């Protein structure tokens, strides 16, 4: 029991867990234990040696323990799971978060690439159209008198006929109805 009290005292004073005025005058006798059980467990209160019998407020002690939980654990070579302070639930370390969310960075990259692509295509399209207009206005000057029409063969525009394929002459096939069936 005495060793537990001395351990508590050493811990409280060594790690500066109590306010500065108190730690200079804190003695082992200031740490009082009670309800010691078979398992290593104990209740403790911390007295205020400046004002003789009164105890340091529980909330202050709780706050001090909560702030320095890690150091207390390592003093005993224990962890949050093996050393439990009743009424003080362990806080879990939050995951590391970078200052700018990563997703915004990737989003920005993809957005810039897409916009760059769109601008490039639009600009080249406009340039191509300007060149075509210039060329066609030149040829128009030459062929002013000729009427440029869609070449029509037998009532069907040449364009729809597949002139490249060659093996089927659409002109005749489409006009099957003109021939009497046998």
């Amino acid at each position, binding site marked *: 029991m005495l060793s537990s009290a001395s351990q508590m005292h050493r811990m409280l004073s060594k790690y500066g867990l109590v306010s500065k005025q108190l730690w200079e005058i804190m003695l082992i006798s200031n740490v009082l234990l009670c309800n010691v059980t078979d398992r290593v467990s104990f209740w403790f209160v911390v007295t205020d040696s400046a004002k003789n019998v009164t105890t340091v407020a529980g909330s202050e002690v709780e706050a001090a323990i909560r702030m320095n939980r890690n150091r207390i654990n390592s003093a005993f070579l224990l962890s949050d799971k093996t050393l439990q302070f009743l009424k003080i639930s362990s806080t879990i370390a939050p995951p590391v978060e970078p200052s700018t969310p*990563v*997703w915004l960075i990737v989003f920005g990259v993809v957005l810039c690439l*897409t916009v760059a692509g769109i601008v490039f*295509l639009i600009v080249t399209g406009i340039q191509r159209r300007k060149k075509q207009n210039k060329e066609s206005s030149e040829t128009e000057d030459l062929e002013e008198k000729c009427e440029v029409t869609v070449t029509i063969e037998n009532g069907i525009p040449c*364009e729809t006929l597949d002139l490249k394929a060659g093996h089927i002459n659409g002109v005749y096939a489409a006009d099957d109805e003109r021939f009497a069936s046998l």
Partner: protein
Amino acid sequence: MEKSRPLWDNPLQFVFACISYAVGLGNVWRFPYLCQMYGGGGFLIPYFIMLVVEGMPLLYLELAVGQRMRRGSIGAWKMISPYLCGVGVASVVVSFFLSMYYNVINAWAFWYLFHSFQDPLPWASCPLNGNRTGDEAECARTSPTQYFWYRRTLNIAPSLEAAGALQWEQALCLTLAWLLVYLCILRGTESTGKVVYVTASLPYCVLIIYLIRGLTLHGAVNGLIYMFTPKLEQLANPKAWISAATQIFFSLGLGFGSLIAFASYNEPSNNCERHAVVVSLINSATSIFASIVTFSIYGFKATFNYESCMSKVILLLTNAFDLEEGSLTADNLGAVQGHLQAAHPQRYAELQPQLKNCSLEAELDTAVQGTGLAFIVYSEAIKNMEVPQLYSVLYFVMLLMLGIGSMLGNTAAILTPLTDSKFIASHLSKEVVSGLVCFINCIIGLIFTMEAGNYWFDIFNDYAATLSLLLIVLVETIAVCYVYGIRRFEKDLHTMIGHKPSWYWKVMWAFASPLLIISLFIFYITDYILTGTLQYQAWDAAQVNDD
């Protein structure tokens, strides 16, 4: 000289464009669900029958119409009969509805993709609550992946009426998705033709990687056995046949006008018959391929959860009864549990509420479809793999490619009739028209980024296109067979591809497919009438699940 119509650089671009359009998210997230619900391996029988009776003939019909008329949907139907241009307009309107809500899926895929570059993945664990003593309350009740989907991604409202605020992150992702679509359709077939090489082939690469990875995962075999064990008694269930027919119908994307638009950019001598058969076979094969991958992932996830559940029970019992470490294993658990219950009935009864009944079948039975499968189940499986960031990036890039591919087809269906119309083409250039369409769709699509947006999405997904498409395709088939005349159509095909279509196609076009569509139509209408007030599933933040 009349400006010549832009063409695909080669027939391969056309095939890739059709594959990219037809192979979409439905192959990944709807077919595996149907397979599971309607008899596993046995479902393939109605599926293939419907493919041959309904899918191939209708696909061939649309491609032939587009290739012959060389116009978008409005122009093509006007040429068949001037009274029928309404069919074309209907197609454009339905495509518009689809493009409004479909791109939101791409926005979500972008969101998950951007979040895949973190270690650990944000959906791997719950965030901490206010005083950092434990997990956030809502997340602790469900799972981290569901929390990430419903809270972080959607920030879902409790009901449809509570519209909520616009989620700026989702709005940004939606804008990016539309910018990307604009980039791909900007130059018409010139740009689309190059893009479809990527959007058609990349998903297959990823699926192969996932297949190899999936089959080597622990527990994958359980999922595959579960899926492929045929439950032939389901064949007697008419719903199985109806689902097969609907799946084929919607999976090929018939009736939207996209296929007509794509085919209109073909050379007139293109062999659209061969291409129709190839595209429909590839589409179905991809569905089966994707469901093999999905079921190995299911099997892995179910086995993982089952084994975690077992370890928790073992730990609980070991601690409670002070048993020796390692004496309780998965094999002897049942026997030991029985023994403990007999030997220490009281203590066992106290422990009873915490002991969960772990069952592999229960885990496998959770059949999921839609966004739940794509975003929750898969991300849950991915977070348990090694190097999860790599698999996550691959998977969401694949979803993105599938989604963009389908969007290209949809926008082509809207833009081709618009650019064909002389009025619009003379006043506005192609880039401006595409830009306007994308812009309008983006603004309207912001509805789906609000807090209640997912409910609107479900409404659109279930009702925007289903009945309308059936009607459109029915009218199309009747128009071609009876208004235009099947003999005239035969002759046109002879002109284009060099031989007349066989009697099989003609029978399908004239009788089988229309009858099938009419019966589907009747089924849907009766289903709507019988259901009465329509309901939707809402996410309750205070409880665990959708209710």
